[in-house]
């Protein structure tokens, strides 16, 4: 595995809090690869994992968080780009997913580690309905106060309820 050193560091520090990991490599010849690493981490260790990644290189968040909705939980996905060396084409995508139970839809902010995630966390709160704990600015980002409480426009199930 090309990402083995990264996984080893995470496993050494977080142990079995890492629930699963897999990597995908697309080869372009001449040693150039596009590498994506997916890691599932439990909610309690998520903040520490982001902190560890931040010490390993230049950590950048690439999109607002997508999610998957299941009956009892939401899987929140954080797509990070991590650059650990100065060589060309060496940035890898590290996709961290965290399961959050629906009866306690909360996760700790990571703006203390990557301040650039603030807009994304604000969007996650208003669009998906996951509460970001300790977020420095909890205001809505895109929607106005006219939107009723408990309606989250990008939550599929909620969207259906609101349009019904």
């Amino acid at each position: 595995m090309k990402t083995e050193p990264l996984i080893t560091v995470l496993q050494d520090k977080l142990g079995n809090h890492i629930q699963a990991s897999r990597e995908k490599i697309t080869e372009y010849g001449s040693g150039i690869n596009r590498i994506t690493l997916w890691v599932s981490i439990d909610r309690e260790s998520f903040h520490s994992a982001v902190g560890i990644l931040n010490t390993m290189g230049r950590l950048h968040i690439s999109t607002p968080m997508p999610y998957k909705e299941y009956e009892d939980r939401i899987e929140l996905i954080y797509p990070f780009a991590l650059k650990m060396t100065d060589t060309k084409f060496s940035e890898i995508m590290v996709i961290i997913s965290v399961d959050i139970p629906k009866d306690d839809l909360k996760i700790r902010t990571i703006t203390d580690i990557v301040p650039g995630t603030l807009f994304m966390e604000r969007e996650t709160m208003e669009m998906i309905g996951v509460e970001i704990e300790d977020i420095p600015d909890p205001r809505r980002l895109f929607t106005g106060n006219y939107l009723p409480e408990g309606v989250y426009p990008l939550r599929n199930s909620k969207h259906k309820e609101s349009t019904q």
Partner: protein
Amino acid sequence: MKSDITYPLNIGPVHPAFKEPIKFTFRIEGEKVVGADIDFGYTHRAIERIAQERNYIQIIYLLERVCGICSFSHPMAYCLAMEDVAGIEVPPRARYIRTIVGELERLHSHLLWTGVAAHEIGFDTLFMYTWNIREKVLDCLEELTGNRINYAMLTIGGVRRDITAENAETIHQILEYYGELYNRASEILLDDLTLRARTEGVGILTMEQAERLCAVGPTARGSGLMKDVRVDYPVNAYYEIPWLRPVSPRDIGKEPIGDVYDRMAVRVLEIQQAIQIIQFCMENIPEGNINTGGGAVKMINSLKKLEGEGVGRYEAPRGEVCHYVILDNQEHPVQIKVKAPTYSNGFTWAPMLTNIEIADIPIVIASIDPCVACADRMTYIQSDGSCASISWEELRAKSIQKYKGVRKRWMK
């Protein structure tokens, strides 16, 4: 606070040319800005939600409408994400065509920006000059794709149109045209005293701030953060260009401090770089197929059997565009997340706008090359705590007034 909003959120593609109007709230002491707040959401069109109801091919054309100027970049990131999830290998000729059209877009976008920036400081001669020379590249794009913007050039697995011998001749002509103009244009943009007086030391974003706030594109590179998706991550034909690297104000012998001038210098240098990249691609473009073949129906039928996730990243003229798709055996994605460069760079406005004069607000806002429509009103809070409004025209008049003073001082 949005409590005074009296109109509802726009849902639906109501204004395809711009992604969002935006409101700024400043705290002012005398003529100085001591705090700034940004309020998004006035024309959120729920494109991500609409995409959940469209098939995989329709989404390409929906995503072109995220941004008129970056109308190649968004569908490009989406196609890369879909190719990632489906494991589709794009033919080499298609990768080169994608690179050529992408760089033509960068050329017209940067020329557009230089015109906008000149206009914001009252230098309308330069505005007219850059927008006039921009017409050539738009004409070229129209000949290649059929449209000046919203090119409909891309499809999942390649491109929809080839570059013919006739098109190639046009591309060579515009490369020659811009090659000849570049020295003159860069001399005006980088050496003109009045332009330097209005942009040097104004709207500073340090490298540390750029990194922490996840800045992208020329905004990041102007602060000395060497970050460019074309060089950091293998995309299209960029990884086959051996000399490609992120540009920086260091290329003109200046250590970057992250002011408006540095961001302008990066864009001017990227105009030259775009010309060189297109030249390289035209010289090295291989023969072969331009897509995987089979047509849209076959593609949709194969994609709707897939389950998984894919990421597509592309360096738009304004910075990184990233799309994340989730597929679940359906004719449309379960979810698609779109990130435009202004989403990342918007956060950098707060430090840039702090400790500048009111007259510099337009050029500092414009300096990240925002994708913003109808930013026609601002509210500023005076030092006594009272609120007042200032129209964009009044703000421009203030800017032009300052420019005249600066010109007199520098021309003595």
